[in-house]
């Protein structure tokens, strides 16, 4: 019989930092900012997890991956999905943003204090992740997943995916 382990909080965070996002595996769940908190109580590990978009089909995959990585540490996982307003694209870490950009996903613009307007998205200013030009235009508000829009770079003539700011 195996003796249940008592991992430290840091060990849990390190393990979670190894889990890739199921849709965009260049960033980890920690870099995505969806792990709200980790609490270790003896053999039991509680993780509060905030979904990105509520319609994201990867939610269950993320939750199961976190539970599995806690089990791999020998502890018992309790992953709670927190449906509050605490996640926003501002929670993506600087390293996560850079990895997104390097993989061809333009990272989200910072949240503004006032509501977003269509004209702001339609004009240029959003930078192409490939060539760095800001001469880009909105092609479609919606992309392959709810979290992304599609833009086109007039400079290098490439379509690219732009993370939406929420």
């Amino acid at each position, binding site marked *: 019989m195996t003796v249940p382990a008592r991992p430290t909080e840091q060990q849990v965070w390190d393990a979670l930092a190894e889990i890739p996002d199921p849709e965009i595996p260049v960033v980890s769940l920690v870099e995505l900012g969806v792990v709200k908190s980790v609490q270790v109580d003896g053999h039991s590990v509680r993780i509060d997890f905030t979904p990105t*978009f*509520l*319609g*994201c*089909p990867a939610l269950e995959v993320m939750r199961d991956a976190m539970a599995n990585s806690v089990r791999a540490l020998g502890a018992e996982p309790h992953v709670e999905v927190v*449906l*509050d*307003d*605490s*996640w*926003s694209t501002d929670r993506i870490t600087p390293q996560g943003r850079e990895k997104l950009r390097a993989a061809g996903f333009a990272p989200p613009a910072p949240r503004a204090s006032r*509501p*977003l*307007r*269509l004209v702001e*998205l339609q004009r240029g200013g959003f930078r192409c992740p490939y060539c760095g030009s800001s001469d880009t235009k909105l*092609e*479609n*508000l*919606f*992309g*392959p*997943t*709810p979290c992304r829009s*599609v833009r086109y770079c007039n400079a290098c003539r490439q379509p690219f995916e732009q993370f*939406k700011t*929420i």
Partner: protein
Amino acid sequence: MSERAQRLLEIADDELILGWRDSEWTGIAPSLEEDVAFSSIAQNEIGHARALYELAAHHLGTTADELAFDRSPEEYRCAPLVQLRRVDWAHTIARHWLYETADELRLARLKQSDDPEVAGLAAKMDREEVYHRLHAQMWADHLRDEPRFRSAVEELWPYAVGVVDEDLRQALAQRLNLARDTSSIGERGDPSDEFRALWDEMTMVRRSVPGATW
């Protein structure tokens, strides 16, 4: 059932059924971009429905799936607006524009709720819905002078008012810049034949093997 659970189910049912209707455009929207956009909006609405059902299910001692699929048509609380069948693109955009605007007013109120779970979820939904509204507004501006769009708005307005509480109906008319009276057609909890047909299709797989794990 508590008033809170009833309220959550109304909104969840609206989002589920509208999401289902929106998804009926998948593969046949007027352009590839709109196919992607409308499918994405549909997915997002159903995601909102799931989160609302989970909140309700927690207090009702059931599950989101049971609430979404195991009730009889008479038990659904969705507004008559979302029950209407899919017609053409102009009609779809008219419903989208009317619904998203009504939903914005409803969410603004829920964000002020004393219940932190409800207020928190409403705030999260509201931030995602911004993109639905931008999409709806873009198309409404584009089709504003099209006769088919205008007649669809006239036809659907009495249904749209039924999405929000009576004291928000005047505000809805103002927000949409429609000087109309605010009497509504139909009531929640009164399933139309069009809704019954949707329900039949939506629950068919689950009814075929009750209790199965998929």
